[in-house]
């Protein structure tokens, strides 16, 4: 899970932004994916997502706001890593906030323990939660130097991080973080003439305290996520997948759940139910399992037990992209925010069908609608009889 292990393919040789093509929703399933989060988030309209192409234009300013918007965490920009936050000595230690600021702020103007990222607008909800978890007792404070409104990466009156921050505050409050410990924005103006025109390159930031980040922290968090997401026994879950584009959990979601689980250990509360989606499958289901095939994260899967099978849903993995809803030919799937139902978090079996062997071809199929043979054989039989009727009239 550490950032450095993920392989991102650089979109342009001279730009740091990278993409994992196999994680991008649109490139995975161009017909049903409507996601254009990165395109919308880009303040300079540098990204064009086509049906099979992902293009980054000359205009890119390396802010990482696209990466923050991506629900799959498919985009990556170096510089957004959560550093080790050192506890502060002294009486009022826990009240001292952890400042977060952007690379444009000269190093000499920022505090030595500040977390420095390319652009604060590039912090996603998951990153903010992760940051809050790493900061422990100290609240995270994003410093606005009064430059954001004029910065090209800011692009508007709203602070670029405000959307993600609001979502993170909601989730953290739900996880039991006290109001005064929630992350917030602090206005710490600096003279406007100090602001550089471009976001400095990552090489100029190497000297800062990002060496040795995680290591110990990572070990703890890997254990933590195993605790919150117990994996199903292998004999029960049989994964069928294409030889490419296998389901992959969203990086962004991993960050979010990781942060929430660490915080949950200190507050002793379960993760807030607002962090989860809920998928329901109605009686109209005909067990085609197309939803399982298209689900990008593997949140929908097939289980088999005791001559029965069906769809199992894991709310820890679901990012709520809604492709299952769109793709279902029977319109049997409903996706909704979880609401307040803690009972539906985790793995849930959504459907259950009896399995039998087709007397014609011997293939195992899900029994329904009173048909005695598998759908393929039924189709074959029906085709033959209708073909004879249309070719030879009275079907003699």
């Amino acid at each position: 899970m550490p950032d450095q292990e993920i392989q991102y393919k650089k979109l342009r040789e001279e730009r740091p932004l990278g993409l994992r093509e196999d994680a991008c929703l649109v490139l995975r399933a161009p017909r049903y994916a409507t996601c254009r989060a990165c395109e919308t988030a880009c303040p300079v309209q540098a990204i064009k997502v086509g049906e099979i192409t992902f293009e980054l234009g000359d205009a890119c300013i390396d802010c990482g706001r696209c990466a923050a918007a991506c629900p799959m965490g498919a985009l990556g920009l170096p510089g957004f890593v959560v550093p080790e936050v050192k506890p502060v000595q002294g009486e009022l230690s826990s009240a001292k906030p952890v400042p977060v600021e952007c690379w444009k702020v000269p190093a000499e103007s920022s505090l030595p323990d500040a977390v420095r990222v390319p652009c604060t607008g590039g912090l996603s909800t998951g990153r903010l939660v992760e940051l809050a978890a790493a900061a422990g007792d100290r609240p995270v404070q994003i410093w606005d130097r009064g430059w954001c409104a004029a910065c090209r990466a800011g692009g508007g009156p709203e602070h670029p991080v405000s959307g993600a921050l609001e979502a993170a505050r909601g989730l953290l409050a739900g996880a039991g973080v006290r109001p005064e410990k929630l992350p917030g924005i602090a206005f710490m103006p600096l003279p406007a003439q100090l602001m550089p025109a471009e976001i400095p390159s990552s090489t100029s930031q190497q000297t800062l305290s990002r060496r040795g980040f995680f290591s110990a922290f990572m070990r703890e968090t890997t254990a933590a996520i195993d605790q919150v997401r117990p994996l199903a026994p292998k004999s029960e879950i049989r994964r069928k997948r294409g030889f490419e584009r296998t389901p992959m959990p969203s990086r962004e979601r991993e960050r979010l759940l990781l942060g929430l689980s660490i915080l949950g250990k200190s507050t002793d509360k379960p993760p807030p139910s607002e962090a989860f989606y809920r998928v329901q499958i109605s009686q109209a289901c005909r067990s085609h399992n197309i939803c399982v095939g298209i689900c990008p994260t593997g949140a929908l899967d097939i289980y088999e037990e005791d001559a029965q099978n069906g769809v199992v849903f894991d709310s820890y993995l679901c990012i709520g992209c809604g492709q299952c809803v769109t793709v279902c030919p029977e319109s049997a799937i409903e996706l909704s925010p979880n609401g307040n139902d803690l009972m539906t978090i985790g793995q849930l079996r959504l459907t259950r069908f009896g399995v039998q062997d087709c007397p014609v071809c011997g293939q195992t199929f899900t029994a329904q609608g009173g048909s005695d043979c598998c759908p393929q054989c039924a189709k074959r039989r029906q085709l033959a009889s209708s073909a004879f009727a249309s070719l030879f009239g009275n079907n003699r």
Partner: protein
Amino acid sequence: MAKWGMVIDLEKCTGCQACSTACQMENNRLPGENYQDVLYYTEGKQPTPTLKWFPRPCMHCEEPSCLHVCPTKATFKTADGVVLIDWNKCIGCKFCMIACPYGVRFYTDEKPLIEPNIKDVFKGSGDLSWNPPYKGPQQDNAHGVGIQPNGVVSKCTFCYHKISKAPAGTANLTNEDEATREFTPACVRTCAPTARYFGDLDNPNSEVSRMISSKKGTRLLEHTGNKPQVYYVTGSGAGGGAAVPMGRNGINKV
């Protein structure tokens, strides 16, 4: 550019299954998963059942319903009218199998039809589902030609590895003509009673075009709007009784 199509004369078809066998050899298929099947169909009960058969390749529709549902756009139609699957894109969701009204798509990762499982005997390496001792056409995953990889759907390609090499402007691909023999789809080439004709539907002088107009070529399941490029003809045109490809019908009649 040609628009490839096929005509199957049901009057001539004897149900010998040479086409299925040829397809199996050409495309490394196993029983039960041939791209080209002869459907056997019984009507009625003892003592007077009727056995009928029906050769069924992929229809290579003009408006393929499989193409319009594919989430990854792995199914595509070539400029010369052939519907193919890009195995590099297919995720094996099987939506196309549900959408296809003719049932001519195959997902072969499940139970084998015959025991022992030949695929276990000749185990494939990497992504390939098996490693047959005799290999047919060259592997071309982008056109769905060759040995099927695991986890993807496959279908008849009209032997795309052959027909795509035919010289431009070719009207007919037949076994009789030495010049076109090598480019003829395996099932057409093998058909002993020459019940199959293959050629350019856009060319009014091609054998297939003439047969369709003179013998009232019929397309299956017209109501679905798929517009197949495979036409069926019977001896005296649709509705004629003499052309019923029947087996024991009549013999059992008292």
